[in-house]
């Protein structure tokens, strides 16, 4: 392995992909992501039932949900709907929230953090005080207010979550950027006559990648659960549209009687976050030149 790396050093992206695929954990994570995305996209064709169909034989004679196995792969919920179907459709919602909303939050947070950390001065002070204000403000309350103002729909919920979730990223990126801006190689760039933009894009942003990967993957589970909370409070994705989060919240009171209703979506959220985390970690190592030859 070391030999191939030594003899084929150039063309960074191609070799980076190859080295990524050589990591077993990363492949495992990638497989899960592909599986979830595939399931979400192909839901109408895979799903055995319609997502909100209340099946007659989905409940026992006493009105209890059915456990996994038999006709229903993952069992049924309190209204006799097939859980597997709802998980597939719910993946659509949760992916949009966990990837899109979280991604937008990450972008906003990075912009604010980098700008404040790199420019400092009054602009930096203003941005960071605003960030502090947002941090101090109860995020849930803000989300409820925003969701109440706009007509709840999936994309509005995603936007609301993005607006609430960029704050931590901004804080961390700000701190990181200020310390990077003090590093000697940045001073060296200045003495070479490099422009601000060049220093920012070529020398500061690449160093922020590891931090962004960590915060990005952490954000997935946080945002998916935040969506569930909003659904629970009636301002999230509106029922009967399923999401992994609101499946948990709909059924949490029956946790003792029908544990699978909470356990399965919970495990799905965990697995998705883990998958992104594994891929992200591997990506960070592969993109870091100082880690070369360690794989």
């Amino acid at each position, binding site marked *: 392995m070391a030999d191939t790396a030594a003899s084929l050093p150039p063309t960074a992206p191609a070799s980076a992909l190859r080295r990524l695929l050589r990591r077993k954990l990363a492949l495992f994570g990638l497989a899960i992501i592909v599986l979830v995305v595939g399931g979400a996209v192909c839901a109408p064709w895979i799903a055995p039932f319609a997502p909100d169909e209340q099946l007659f034989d989905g409940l026992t004679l006493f009105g209890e949900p059915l456990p996994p196995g038999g006709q229903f792969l993952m069992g049924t919920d309190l209204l006799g709907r097939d859980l597997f179907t709802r998980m597939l459709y719910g993946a659509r919602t949760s992916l949009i929230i966990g990837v899109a909303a979280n991604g937008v939050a990450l972008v906003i947070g990075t912009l604010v953090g980098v700008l404040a950390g790199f420019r400092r001065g009054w602009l930096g002070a203003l941005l960071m005080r605003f960030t502090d204000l947002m941090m101090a403000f109860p995020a849930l309350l803000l989300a409820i207010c925003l969701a109440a103002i706009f007509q709840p729909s999936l994309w509005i919920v995603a936007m609301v979550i993005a607006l609430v979730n960029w704050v931590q990223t901004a804080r961390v990126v700000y701190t990181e950027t200020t310390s990077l801006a003090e590093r*000697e190689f940045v001073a060296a760039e200045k003495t070479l*006559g490099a422009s601000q933009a060049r220093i920012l894009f070529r020398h500061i942003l690449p160093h922020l990648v590891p931090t962004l990967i960590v915060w990005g993957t952490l954000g997935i589970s946080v945002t998916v659960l935040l969506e569930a909370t909003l659904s629970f409070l009636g301002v999230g994705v509106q029922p009967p549209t399923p999401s992994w989060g609101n499946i948990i919240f709909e059924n949490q009171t029956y946790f003792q009687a029908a544990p699978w209703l909470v356990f399965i979506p919970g495990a799905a959220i965990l697995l998705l976050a883990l998958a992104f985390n594994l891929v992200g970690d591997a990506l960070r190592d592969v993109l870091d030149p100082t880690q070369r030859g360690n794989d």
Partner: protein
Amino acid sequence: MTLAAQTMAAPVQGAAATPLLSVRDLTVSVRDRGVLRPLVEGLSFDLAAGETLAIAGESGSGKSITSLALMGLLPNNVAVTAGQALLDGTDLPRLPEAEMRGLRGAKVAMIFQEPMTSLNPVHRIGTQLIEAIRAHEPVPQRAARAAAIEALRRVRISEPERRMGQYPHELSGGMRQRVMIAMALAMRPALLIADEPTTALDVTVQREVLELLRDLQAETGTAIILITHDMGVVAETADRVVVMKAGQVVESGPVAQIFDAPAQPYTRDLLAAVPRLGAGAERGALLPPEAPVPVARLIDAQVRFDIGANFFGRPTHRVHAVEGVSFDIRPGETFGLVGESGCGKSTIAKALAGLVPHRGLIEVAGKKLSELTAQGRKEICRDVQMVFQDPMAALDPRMTVGEAVAEPLLIHGVGNAEERRDRAADLFQRVGLTPEQMTRYPHEFSGGQRQRICVARALALKPKLIICDESVSALDVSVQARVLALLEELQQEMGVSYLFISHDMAVVENVVDRLAVMYLGQIVEMGTRDQVFGDPRHPYTQRLLDAVPIPDPARRGRAHVRPAGEMPSPIRALGDAPARLALRDVGGGHLVAAAA
């Protein structure tokens, strides 16, 4: 003192008396992907009470690993795999951790290079000292406190009672190292291991600390293992020397023998590479002529930083980092700036490179820095380049070194991609590297190679002036000698001028044509190398020169200047500017400040 050291060393040469510490065939290995790789191999030596043994070597020689092995402080993947180290009959590497803990501090103590990181910043000096004492002896608080004050007094710290209540950051570097020594010697250990104890200190402070160690040793009979890369320090303090290279002992013997008649070629090369005061005369006294337009000119330059804030947000204090400095650098010459830390020499470099704002006049190639537009700022970068102290920090770790060297060309839009790559390849060859190495990253190179890469990057735009800010200070002496030779070659070839900033008087003496000595933000003496080194007039210059350790054990006994106390702070209340020193010409352009 020399006499005392000799009598103490005497029994060892007979080897009849049992030595305090006896190291036999010590091998320390690191486990790297399942394979044991030796870091230190077959090290043997004896050490008697009251004796000083220096383990000298360059980075990677295994000298620090040896000290950690003796202290039982090796990292997890490193272990002693063979041999023994008997301290009074106890085999240190094989002692269980619980017993080793009892020994550490009480019988074996250690002081490290950087006293700031070895002291806990959130505890007072007194608390830390008392804790160290009570960890080994269950004495009451009051007795421990008295012992702590006594320990501080022994290391000649002024006002020991007051220091007890201070925090580490309130003390200067030299004082912190004294506190570390006080802590290490509080229990009167039989063996003291000092790992580069003075490397982070200024030369005058280094001198004081070394003398202190020697006096304390004479008083207590502690045996000292001194680990250092500095042959000057070895010559001034050691009784015997072990020279190490890549984990192996190259040569060992009494200090006089090693210096006067080194048996191994490596030792000879190492000693030859050590910069010595007085060797600079070989450079020739030919000064580049004064040109109508100097490469750089400073007239009454000042750099001040406002700090602190009162209730209304106004600054309360001002750091007078550079205060009224004037000099010029002629084309093709090397101008030196020397002084101890905090004297403002690096700030001048930053001001010249446009990294900090200044007042007064700074001109580069006839253009005033303060009147430049953004475009002009960029243009001036073609004339002034900088080589920093730590090449690892000055290179972007995520960029290949080829990209780094070609980057200034890209920034200034020189040529197309292919021409830039060719030029970078040329530069690589010019500084003694191969173009094949251009696709590698900075961490894949050694320190000396990295500094060559930085030199190549600085040369890319063919500047008129290169600022070398402590550029060779972090390098091993043999590497340092080669980088200095490269710089001189490049100067002869391209006629570039250097502003050479260093704290190391011996290096400066070897490379500069003219120099200025700085103290507290002002120049106290300036002239040609022969004027300043041959006839130092200002007391501070004299003290600096006296403090330089001389790599010649025969000259150990020379009289030393008295300690001059702490350097005053350059931070002053607003409106309380320091008095300007007037420079007086004492003949031939040799300028000296009137002694205060």
